[in-house]
């Protein structure tokens, strides 16, 4: 006997979302970019408002970086290069995941995380070498605020790398979306840090 329920058309297939993780990561990256660039804009504002003084080469410069503070250029440049390498490792993970190469994907993701940890270590080393005291003035306050925010973002990148690596390690090799989103996030981190490096450590 045919019941009313039997005559009802079956439900359609569940719609698979199209790249939700990539889109969400893109949104977070956009938000993070606005965060860092907004902070850099305020940095510019303060730096431009600081009084002028004669620099070492005789040119007039803004008296923004306190005279007793020295930027450790080797450490900061190394940190910038480290971030670029992290982004390359993230892309290597995508390359390997596309070819369903679980070993290299895992390796690349762990290396990305490890490089992230190295970046954190480098930033802490910069803090130690500079010896700036947070409460000493406007520059120090803003320096720790902006670099500290970047440090937190790098920490989230390391966490992302570890989660992605353990997912692949657990056998989710075909789950390329996470690896792609992970690479995007590291591209964002590298871009944001490069801007910060140029403004805070190079231009000073």
């Amino acid at each position: 006997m045919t019941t009313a329920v039997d005559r009802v058309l079956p439900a359609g297939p569940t719609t698979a979302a199209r790249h939700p993780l990539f889109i969400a990561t893109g949104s977070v990256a956009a938000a993070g970019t606005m965060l860092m660039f907004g902070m850099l804009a305020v940095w510019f504002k303060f730096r431009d408002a600081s009084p002028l003084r004669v620099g070492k080469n005789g040119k007039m410069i803004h008296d923004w970086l306190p005279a007793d503070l020295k930027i450790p250029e080797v450490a900061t440049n190394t940190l910038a290069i480290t971030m670029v390498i992290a982004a390359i490792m993230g892309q290597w993970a995508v390359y390997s995941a596309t070819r369903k190469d679980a070993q290299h994907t895992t390796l690349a993701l762990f290396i990305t995380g490890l490089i992230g940890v190295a970046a954190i270590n480098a930033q802490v080393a910069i803090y130690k070498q500079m010896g700036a005291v947070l409460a000493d003035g406007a520059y120090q306050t803003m320096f720790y605020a902006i670099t500290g925010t970047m440090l937190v973002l790098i920490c989230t990148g390391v966490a992302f790398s570890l989660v992605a690596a353990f997912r692949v390690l657990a056998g989710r090799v075909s789950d390329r979306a996470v690896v792609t989103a992970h690479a995007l996030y590291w591209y964002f981190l590298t871009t944001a840090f490069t801007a910060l490096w140029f403004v805070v450590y190079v231009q000073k």
Partner: protein
Amino acid sequence: MTTVNLPSTLGAEATADSGFLGSVGAWLTTTDHKRIGRLFIGTAALWLLAFVGVASLLGFERIDSKTLTFNEGMMTQLFAASKTLASFGVMVPLMLGLSLAIAPTQVGSRSVMFARNAMLGFYLWAIGSALVVVSLIGNGGPGGGSAQMVDLYLMGLALVVLGLLASAVSVVATVLSARTAGTDLADVPSFSWAALIGSSSLVLTLPVTLGTLIYVAVDHHYTRVAFDGNMGVIKWLGWSMSQPQTFLYVIPAVGILAELAPVVARRKQPLRGGVFVGVGLISVALLGSVTQNVHGLAWSGSLIDKAKSFVPYALFNLLPILGVVVVLALALLALKSDSIKMIAPFVPAFLGGGMILTAMLGNALQLISSTNLSGTVFEEGVLVYISYGTVLVAWSAIAFWGPTLWGRMLPTKAVAGIGALGFVGTVLAALPMYIAGFADQQADSIQDFDYSGPASLWNAVSTAGHALFAVCVVAATVVAVKSFARGERVAGNPWIDGGAQ
């Protein structure tokens, strides 16, 4: 495009025999987008009551500018509470809650993308906003006397911003990635489009608030040299609670109006692409707000000076108005139909939309330097218009999508009546502020303003308007709770299907 009402497969639904604790637990751990949206809306209603109460108190204190009824020290906190609650307690969460609840069903998704992230966003926002209120009560906030409470205010505000950001990301990901197969972005309903544009605007502007907030918080906690300590909070963060940033908060409200007009007209929206363009134009305001500067119009100097002043002014303040005008004009075009069948939710939507447009026009006027309105209560009038207007539109949305969200309907007369009364309350509360602004009554001040004109009358009328709006909010809450808890169950959406008027 009609909405689809699919059951969530992710929600920890309470069953009939789960008891009270089980029901509470199911709500607290839910991943059902409708519940998350309703949590946002319900909690925002609570802060709305607080906001309207604060606005009424401030109005009452201003009636007699020579004497003080309340403690003078409270006033700084009350003004700060008014601004903070209007933006981050009412406008953004109301619109975001509606976006979370409605947008997934409109695009044909079973749930919001990253539902746990959206729920985390709600928790961060709810806890953060509670901390903000506690800090304001404890003499914190902008200009607060207690350093620890100012720190608490900044921390609470940071949590609020993070929470709203997290939920906004979920909305963006849902509309962009979880549409029914074959549905182009140009095919999504007007509200979903507005939810996408509004949430994207939040994603792009709230981090700028967060960055400045981090600077201000670190500076306030450690040194208080760079950002003027407690007095710098509003100076550096005030833009996020003022115009044109608030225009971005209410973008979904314009989408609601655009959604309802074709329903009333019983026809397809003519020039539908124009509605999308109009909604998109409002988001141009984000370019102005992230500069963290006021882009006023100083019509003086050489032609180049005038152009330098006019271009950013027009871009960031006039283009958003054009966006709303386009949407309203197309809504009216849709209503030019023989098959019009008025539905109650359209009343508050249309009136609220008008209030939002009035706020935008007022903002454009006050930024013209020769009007001398900057720094007067005219600015407060703009905020009242836009926030109360948004609440009216949200009320219409709750009534319109009530059957979808709760499976029950609000009474037709109550929807239209409260909407109309709320409109009267809004005009009474805000219009006297516009007039008093022309008389140079200073903003954020409760005494010692003396100008030729009936100062007491304007402030008394404004207070009456706030009080009337407070009555409307209480009435709306009572009607909604009663109807959605015990009202008649309905199938589908009778507003759309023609079962209700």
